[in-house]
């Protein structure tokens, strides 16, 4: 109807020309001119455009973006008038889904197509579904920092970028599992590799790289990160993101709901990676002892994932297990073989007997190591002057249950000592056992460790313990122990997977504090407590230890409290707000969300006002990050606290947007 003309060529209806650019925002984009009226519906305009283009293509993902208003024209039944579009509007007809590069919590880059037209919250739901991460509400995207972009171009141009941009998910259906991974990953070797990257822990980073990466040196530095969060209620396009941009994907809210190793391999792994990088880059501080535990867990996790001992989530099904049980049951009945084995193992108690050198430190004694005949049975260690005297009373008998076992090893010096701190009613007695070689050491050490936990060498874990110790010794030989003594940067990453560089496992400040050969035994010591964990258990343990740190889960922003003359830090955690002194880092005051009545944002003066029970009012303006970010953090945590197990993964998106959206959202 638009475009009615008189004979002279004048338009006699109210139609006018609308220019539409094809493609993404681009000054040189080709353009079309359409004749429209104010009453034209967007849908009609779209149709016209497609007709005009005369190209066979799937246009279903395309929509019109209004550049001046920074808005998508998604309501196809709206008229141009209703949108207020006039002839001067710059409109772009382009795809709603565009590729972006996500930097995952494990620092790997992944290209995928994200929605540029939906609010980020919805876009995140889709991304997480693609990555098979449950609970997308806990995650969000950050702008990449400027600096890193440059660095990337200079130093790692050849970095591998995983690509999932071709993968299309059928909407609405939960991805089925196929060959132990969500079906959409099993299409090609490439996507399969991508899934492994997502679901398996990455090897430790190169210590040199670790030292180069920026680390926060103060609380103020830690606020930087949080100024970069994108807004959940607006779409990527509105936030100035362009196709091909790099964004960081991170767990934003530190409230991890229903973490389940069976259903959440990717989520668990990425969470572990985020925790690990937090610790390595000193985003969160921990003590030396804690760092050793974290290092030991990383070592263990890496070892398991390298050796391919990944616990397949959808592995053997229960039916098979039952059958096996029934079968072995039957065997027991038919042959009675199993019980005899059990009998054997009940009646024969494994023991160690050997000549060892023993040293008992005492006050005022100059005696050194002395050779003794040592017998180690069950959890008890007895030693005799010589083998002949063995049947008689031993010189001393020690029950190792509950004792502390400390390795004192120097592989290059061929020193293999076990230090035992054995508790007795009178206190702790200290005793050193000196072994001749690695083999002997590993056997005795493993026995001591089991005994300290009240288990005997009959325990099934004995041999694996021996192996673990041998492995660690070889690690020390190749790692920091041997030639690495002088240099602080031992052999590069090309050493075998087993030979791990301890510097890749600890934050750089420990690299400065300790030599590799000092670090290794300490990690070994901590490792003995975690050596039996499976991969997912170890990851979970790592996350738990991370969560137990006092500073865990606090996001920092610089604010200025009403009535105060200096900037302060506001810490936002999942259950409370913390006012922190900027210079000293002391906690000034804590408010809990459970006492919160309401909060208001004055967008004009960038001020957040919060009212707590008993008429406690707090107001502050945001300095380092937009008050939208603070607002969204608070609203987000409150939203997360409303989740219930009963509702499963269903998301109340409206509530989320209500709690976190700004005034434009309505």
């Amino acid at each position, binding site marked *: 109807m638009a475009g009615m003309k008189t004979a002279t060529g004048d338009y006699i209806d109210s139609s006018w020309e609308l220019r539409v650019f094809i493609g993404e925002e681009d000054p040189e984009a080709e353009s079309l001119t359409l004749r429209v009226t104010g009453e034209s519906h967007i849908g009609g305009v779209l149709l016209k455009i497609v007709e005009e283009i005369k190209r066979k293509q799937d246009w279903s993902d395309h929509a019109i973006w209004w550049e001046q208003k920074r808005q998508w024209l998604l309501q196809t039944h709206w008229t141009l008038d209703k949108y207020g579009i006039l002839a001067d509007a710059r409109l772009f007809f382009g795809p709603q889904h565009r590729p972006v590069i996500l930097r995952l919590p494990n620092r790997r880059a992944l290209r995928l197509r994200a929605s540029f037209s939906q609010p980020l919250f919805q876009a995140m739901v889709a991304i997480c579904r693609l990555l098979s991460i449950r609970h997308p509400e806990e995650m969000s995207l950050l702008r990449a920092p400027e600096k890193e972009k440059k660095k990337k171009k200079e130093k790692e141009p050849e970095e591998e970028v995983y690509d999932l941009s071709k993968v299309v998910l059928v909407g609405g259906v939960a991805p089925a599992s196929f060959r132990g991974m969500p079906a959409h990953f099993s299409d090609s070797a490439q996507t399969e590799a991508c899934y492994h990257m997502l679901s398996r822990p990455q090897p430790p980073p190169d210590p040199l790289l670790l030292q180069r990466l920026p680390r926060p040196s103060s609380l103020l530095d830690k606020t930087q990160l949080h100024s970069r969060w994108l807004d959940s209620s607006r779409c990527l396009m509105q936030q100035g993101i362009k196709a091909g941009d790099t964004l960081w994907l991170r767990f934003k809210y530190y409230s991890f709901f229903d973490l389940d190793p069976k259903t959440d391999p990717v989520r668990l792994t990425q969470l572990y990676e985020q925790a690990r990088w937090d610790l390595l880059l000193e985003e969160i501080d921990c003590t030396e002892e804690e760092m050793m535990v974290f290092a030991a867990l990383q070592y263990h996790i890496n070892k398991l994932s390298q050796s391919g001992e990944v616990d397949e989530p959808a592995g053997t099904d229960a039916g098979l297990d039952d059958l096996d049980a029934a079968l072995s049951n039957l065997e*027991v009945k038919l042959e009675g073989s199993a019980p005899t084995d059990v009998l054997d193992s009940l009646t024969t108690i494994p023991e160690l007997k050997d000549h060892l050198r023993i040293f008992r430190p005492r006050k005022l004694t100059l005696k050194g190591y002395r050779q003794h005949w040592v017998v180690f049975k069950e959890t008890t260690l007895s030693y005799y002057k010589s083998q002949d005297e063995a049947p008689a009373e031993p010189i001393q008998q020690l029950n190792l249950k509950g004792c502390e076992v400390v390795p004192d090893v120097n592989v290059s010096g061929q020193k293999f000592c076990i230090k035992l701190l054995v508790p007795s009613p009178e206190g702790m007695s200290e005793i050193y056992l000196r072994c001749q070689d690695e083999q002997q050491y590993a056997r005795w050490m493993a026995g001591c460790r089991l005994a300290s936990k009240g288990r005997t060498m009959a325990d099934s874990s004995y041999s694996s313990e021996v192996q673990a110790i041998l492995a660690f010794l070889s690690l020390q030989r190749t790692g920091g122990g041997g030639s690495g003594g002088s240099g602080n940067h031992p052999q590069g990453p090309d050493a075998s997977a087993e030979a791990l560089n301890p510097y890749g496992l600890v934050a750089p400040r420990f690299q400065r504090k300790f030599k590799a050969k000092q670090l290794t035994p300490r990690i070994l010591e901590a490792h003995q407590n975690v050596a039996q964990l499976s991969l997912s258990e170890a990851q979970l343990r790592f996350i738990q230890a991370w969560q137990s740190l006092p500073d865990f889960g606090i996001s920092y922003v610089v604010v200025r409290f009403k009535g105060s003359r200096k900037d302060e830090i506001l810490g936002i955690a999942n259950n409370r707000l913390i006012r922190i002194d900027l210079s000293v*880092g002391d906690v000034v005051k804590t408010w809990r969300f459970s006492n919160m009545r309401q909060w208001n944002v004055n967008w004009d003066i960038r001020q957040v006002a919060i009212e707590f029970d008993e008429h406690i009012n707090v107001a502050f303006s945001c300095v380092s990050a937009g008050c939208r970010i603070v607002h969204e953090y608070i609203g987000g945590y409150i939203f997360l606290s409303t989740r219930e197990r009963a509702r499963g993964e269903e998301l109340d998106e409206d509530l989320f947007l209500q709690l976190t959206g700004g005034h434009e959202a309505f």
Partner: protein
Amino acid sequence: MINLPCKNVSILNNFGAGDLFSQSLGVDILPPPEPKPPRAEFNYTVGFKDLNESLNALEDQDLDALMADLVADISEAEQRTIQAQKESPQKQPYSASPYVPSFHGTASPGYGTNVAATSQFDDDLPPPPADPVLDLPLPPPPPEPISQEEEEAQAKADKIKLALEKLKEAKVKKLVVKIHMNDNSSKSLMVDERQLARDVLDNLFEKTHCDCNVDWCLYEIYPELQIERFFEDHENVVEILSDWTRDTENKLLFLEKEEKYAVFKNPQNFYLDNKGKKENKETNEKMNAKNKESLLEESFCGTSIIVPELEGALYLKEDGKKSWKRRYFLLRASGIYYVPKGKTKTSRDLACFIQFENVNIYYGIQCKMKYKAPTDYCFVLKHPQIQKESQYIKYLCCDDARALSQWVTGIRIAKYGKMLYDNYQRAMARAGLASRWTNLGTVNAVPPAPPSTGVKTGTTQANGQIPQATQSVNTALGEDRRHLETTKDKKPGLGSHDPGAPRAQPPPKSSLPPPPPPVRRSSDVGGGSPGTPPKAKSAAASFPAQPDDLLPPPPPPPPPLEDDELPPPPPDFNDAPPDFVPPPPPSFAGDLGFSLPPPPPPPPALAPEPARTPPVVVKRPPPPPKRQENPGLPGGAGGEQDFMSDLMKALQKKRGNMS
């Protein structure tokens, strides 16, 4: 305290054991009482001889109580042996016939008389879990024995199993422990090495008629070191006590300590305390129950627990000296740290003072006098095995009582984690149960769902069985029972028993030996009631096993049968719950609690039958709890197939492999 060496119990004859058991059930056996007294004596002497020497020191009333335990204990062992004896006659019962129409002869020929039969069934009910097969009365006419070999194999396996069980039992360490009450009296108690503090507490509840509230605890006192602490409910009592030296002056007390679960009653005092600022205290007291709950949820139910933030200056006694140094300490989940001189309290500067793996926390008593401590609010960290003064014992001193309680509690949370909360919930459940008992007698106390320890035992001991199945059914049963109980509890007063009569023990209790602690798992708080729970429990254990071993699963018995075929209903069963007048339908649950496990679908036909009185039978088939192991039970042949399908499959597979 007397150390009792490991002890295996002698074998008694069938009848003796049976009597004993009915006796311990606290049942009035009306008919032939004649064998009873002698038996009791007999057992008594057996027990006494064993213990004679070591018990000399005990006072009379101690001895009585102790004997009760011991006798119960012995009877348990007897059952095992009885089953062993029964083994051979019952071998044939493996029949392939799917449906055994009657229970004819279920009471094996040997048990002709009333009494005997009764005891026989008693025996059947509480069998040790390991060999449940044996105690199921089997249909005697073995129509078609499965196969000779299989039978033999089965017999062999059973024997081996039995032997193993015995080996195991022989290894169980038991201690006789003298526990001091707060009224200066004391009780002696047998504690076996599988019992947790919770089990012992439950036992004591029963013996002392106290109010069972959550504050009751076992409390150890070291007079020499002047330190003391309460046991956490999950701690293994024998393990702790074995650290005491032979000549120790240490004492074990049974008393109430508010501190034990203070954190769960008022979490805000530990989690929200802002260094005791006044305004906070006021708000804290106002905290309502809902907020408390959410605070607890937040702190204890997340992926990891939250250790209260705690820091402050404490005095530390220097190793081996009597001087005290003031230092700034911080509590973290990984241990106690202090701020070294000239450093800040940021994480990276902290020095580790102690980690909690190998130490227990104690209250220091009168350290001011003994060690010249600045205040009397001291806590002590030491390795549990250290019993004498040593430089390895760490003494710390707080400024006030509030700080002391925060530190001690904080350390316990860091050390034990969620376990504490679980303990508290169990204790609450127990206390709640206790208050509801009154009109039902103590009989119903069903232990809360067995913790993991049970699973462990279950798996290790079953030899020819599929252990998981047994265990899970058992657990399910337990839950069932509990569920039933609650429903029952909600029902208006049953019978005429006066609910007001507080803790009036049912008559049997006082006069008869308390039941043996359940053999199979330490966690199983048999303590609830003297007689019945073990029975129910063991029966429960025995049922699930049946599917595996008993090839022809007998279909649910036609109710009339029992009357004809079975020995006259043993009077004691009727009477067992004296408060129970004819159980009206709703009380059905009560029956379960008392005598038999709720009929898990398949087995109901068996053992329980004879003991049942008609009314009970009617109610017998309640909706069976869903259970995977035996989906098809109620249906005769069809059910049986289902029920054995895994075995059949296994067989087929096996054959396939061989051919």
